[in-house]
């Protein structure tokens, strides 16, 4: 019996089943819930590792289920999906550990972890989707699974944030649906195909295809927080810190960016898209978003809001890499999908630690916090330097390849965008770092909790340290096999530019 | 009232259209008359309307019995319609009812019997029986003391239950719903009609039993 088709199904099940069981658990069965969570996350990681190795050796993991008489749900592990799912599997484990520590003793944890698992299930589905309808299904599921997480506190503010989130995402989902249906009526298939499934479409369809592209990108751009569709993201900050971390680094925002990658490369085909003339506007949109996000971040005092606008800016690097059209830029965009995840999750987990341990939420309250929480702030510093793009942190690699790719594709203006964005990023992160390390701490913190000799609980401290190490490692060890960079090169080589 | 100004022409137009379409029907049409006539011999009765009601389209009549029962259930569910009169005895009414009720019951029996070969039948007989019941109620008559709720319900259910039983039997024996063996069709139809008459008559009367009445809402 060939087990290969079952692997992607097992990956989905490894987070779905624990999630469904957790819903039914009583609030105080902490041990069972924690066990389920960690087992699921570890199992998920093992399975993904197995697929990673298998795909590297040329295996094909594909599962199909008929959805309609002539349309199937497809789960497929290829190099591109593995890039994303590996990221989500690793960060899920990290975030789960963190969330267990973060939510210790707070109410409604069964509900929280249930939806948390569903959220990861959807992300896994998004990455493993082998055609557009499967993608759409998990993409909408992601919306539904994240909503209760954003609403978790049940306050009026949370309700408004949840509403705003839905207004954007449901609207985006509707556009995506319309675009998908339209595409389907033209092609009769929605399978993701290396080099695009539209190759060979006739001249007469070009206007329709442009409209479809706009619909799909607008639908995905909501989650990818492309300007002007980014409005929900800063509001969604009311969610608990692990949720924010997951939303920004892996799940929602990345799902949008990943979708854009799929659409441009595997539905339209990047050269076909360039021929349609739709990549240039996309590049401009991404560039605008990058600059706009950085500018807005510059003027925030709320730490999480600043990080949110930083996300708006940073995620668009992925879109930019896609829209530049060229193998090297592709590598830059792809690898940033992973790198941004490591760095941003570090920053958010650190922000969560500050809020949880010291009650610090604002940048103006962060003076001297490095002396009180040196480890946390060290991780934060790594993340911040990564965002700026300073070597040797991973962010540098992304920007390097993006810049090279832009030059190779003859789009020099991108260099200015990159440089400008780095400058802006530096100007909102460096003052923070300065305050953290070199200013005098206040006499007392807004709301301090003590954890004995440690600066904070282990479950809160270890995850950001781990991700900071990953961010560093991805930069330092970029030349090693199975590094994100090499995997991105594999994608570029295997899926896009070799015949 | 001004909303009615345009209502009249608005209704006249479809009325004229409908009138025209009725007139456009052919002058002569057989309908199913010949088919009915052909099968009269095996229907068990000689009155075509009864044959259609209880044999050819007996299934409609089966459902019909339940329509009536449903109406009664609905009325009872709302608490019933009260016919109780506060006035004491009215000699004229009382005497008339004493004479009329037996006559009506007789008339009902006759109508039931005659339905097999001439106009008449269960519905007509039931209606007359119901009239007798309502008259009795109007004159202040109440359920007989011996008449417990279950018997009343059984009388109400007689028609539907008879139809159900007949359905079950025909289904088991002939394999078809309400397919009577031609030889016994006449007697079977008479049984059904009798049960239906009882049901209809009692139902028409029972509609006017109100909540205070012992015949209704006896449940715990």
């Amino acid at each position, binding site marked *: 019996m060939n087990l290969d088709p079952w692997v992607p199904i097992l990956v989905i099940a490894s987070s779905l089943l624990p999630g469904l069981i957790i819903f039914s658990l009583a609030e105080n069965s902490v041990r069972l819930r924690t066990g389920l969570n960690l087992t699921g996350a570890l199992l998920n990681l093992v399975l993904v590792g197995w697929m990673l190795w298998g795909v590297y050796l040329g295996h094909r993991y594909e599962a199909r289920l008929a959805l309609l008489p002539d349309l199937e749900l497809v789960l497929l592990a290829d190099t591109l999906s593995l890039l994303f799912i590996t990221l989500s599997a690793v960060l899920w484990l990290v975030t789960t550990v963190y969330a267990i520590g973060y939510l210790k003793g707070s109410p409604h944890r069964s509900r929280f972890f249930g939806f948390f698992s569903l959220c990861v299930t959807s992300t896994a589905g998004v990455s493993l989707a082998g055609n557009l309808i499967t993608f759409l299904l998990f993409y909408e599921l992601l919306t539904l699974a994240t909503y209760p997480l954003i609403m978790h506190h049940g306050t009026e503010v949370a309700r408004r944030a949840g509403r705003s989130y839905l207004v954007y995402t449901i609207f985006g989902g509707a556009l995506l649906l319309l675009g998908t249906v339209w595409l389907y009526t033209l092609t009769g298939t929605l399978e993701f195909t290396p080099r695009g499934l539209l190759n060979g479409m006739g001249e007469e369809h070009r206007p329709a295809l442009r409209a479809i592209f706009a619909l799909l990108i607008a639908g995905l751009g909501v989650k990818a927080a492309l300007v002007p569709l980014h409005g929900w993201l800063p509001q969604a900050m009311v969610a608990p810190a692990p949720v924010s971390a997951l939303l920004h680094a892996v799940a929602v925002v990345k799902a949008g960016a990943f979708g854009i990658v799929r659409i441009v490369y595997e539905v339209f085909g990047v050269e076909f898209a360039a021929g349609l003339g739709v990549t240039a506007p996309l590049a401009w949109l991404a560039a605008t978003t990058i600059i706009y996000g950085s500018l807005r971040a510059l003027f925030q005092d709320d730490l999480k809001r600043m990080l949110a606008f930083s996300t708006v800016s940073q995620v668009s690097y992925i879109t930019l890499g896609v829209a530049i059209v060229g193998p090297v830029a592709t590598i830059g965009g792809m690898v940033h999908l992973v790198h941004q995840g490591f760095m941003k999750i570090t920053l958010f987990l650190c922000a969560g630690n500050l809020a949880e341990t010291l009650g610090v939420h604002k940048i103006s309250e962060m003076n001297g916090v490095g002396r009180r929480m040196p480890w946390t702030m060290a991780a934060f510093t790594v993340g911040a330097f990564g965002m700026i793009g300073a070597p040797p942190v991973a962010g540098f690699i992304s920007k390097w390849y993006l810049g090279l790719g832009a030059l190779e594709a003859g789009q020099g203006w991108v260099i200015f965008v990159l440089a400008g964005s780095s400058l802006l990023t530096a100007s909102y992160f460096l003052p923070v770092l300065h305050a953290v390390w070199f200013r005098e701490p206040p006499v007392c913190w807004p709301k301090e909790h003590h954890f004995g000799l440690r600066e904070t609980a282990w479950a809160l401290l270890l995850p950001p340290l781990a991700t900071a190490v990953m961010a560093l490692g991805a930069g330092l060890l970029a030349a090693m096999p199975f590094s994100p960079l090499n995997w991105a090169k594999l994608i570029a080589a295997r899926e896009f530019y070799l015949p | 009232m001004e909303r009615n100004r345009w209502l009249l022409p608005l209704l006249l137009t479809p009325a004229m259209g409908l009138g025209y379409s*009725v007139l456009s*029907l052919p002058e002569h049409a057989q*309908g199913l008359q010949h088919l009915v006539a052909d099968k009269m011999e095996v229907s068990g009765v000689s009155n075509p309307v009864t044959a*259609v009601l209880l044999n050819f*389209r007996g299934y409609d009549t089966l459902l*019909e019995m339940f329509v009536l029962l449903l109406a009664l259930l609905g009325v009872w569910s*709302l608490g019933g319609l009260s016919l109780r009169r506060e006035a004491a005895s009215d000699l004229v009414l009382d005497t008339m009812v004493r004479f009329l009720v037996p006559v009506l019951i007789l008339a009902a029996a006759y109508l039931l019997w005659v339905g097999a070969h001439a106009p008449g039948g269960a519905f007509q007989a039931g209606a007359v029986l119901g009239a007798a019941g309502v008259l009795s109620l109007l004159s202040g008559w109440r359920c007989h003391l011996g008449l417990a709720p279950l018997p009343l319900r059984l009388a109400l259910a007689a028609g539907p239950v008879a139809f159900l039983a007949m359905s079950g039997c025909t289904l088991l024996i002939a394999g078809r719903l309400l397919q009577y063996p031609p030889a016994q069709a006449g007697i079977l139809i008479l049984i059904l009609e009798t049960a239906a008459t009882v049901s209809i008559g009692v139902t028409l009367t029972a509609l006017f039993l109100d909540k205070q009445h012992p015949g209704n809402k006896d449940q715990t």
Partner: protein
Amino acid sequence: MNTAFFYALVGVGLFFLGLYALIVHAHLLRKILALNVMGCGVFLVLVALARRTGEAQPDAVPHAMVITGIVVAFSATALALTLMVKLTAATGRAELQSDERDPH
């Protein structure tokens, strides 16, 4: 035009007369009566047109349909009247609230 069609036309007239009354009158008893008039119109059409056989015997099937229809109409009227009585007892008026009336 023979008598069958005359009666059928009267039936059509009754139907629309009833419909007019149903819309115009607010009192529930009138509405219920109007529905009964409409029903009579339909029954008349059914029975009248059954006479077109050109023989002594009219078509029996519509007659049976009308008997069925009468029982249905009767049952519905009984339920409607009860509802009306209860509604009147509950609201003090034998009308439906005009603010929620049908938007015809």
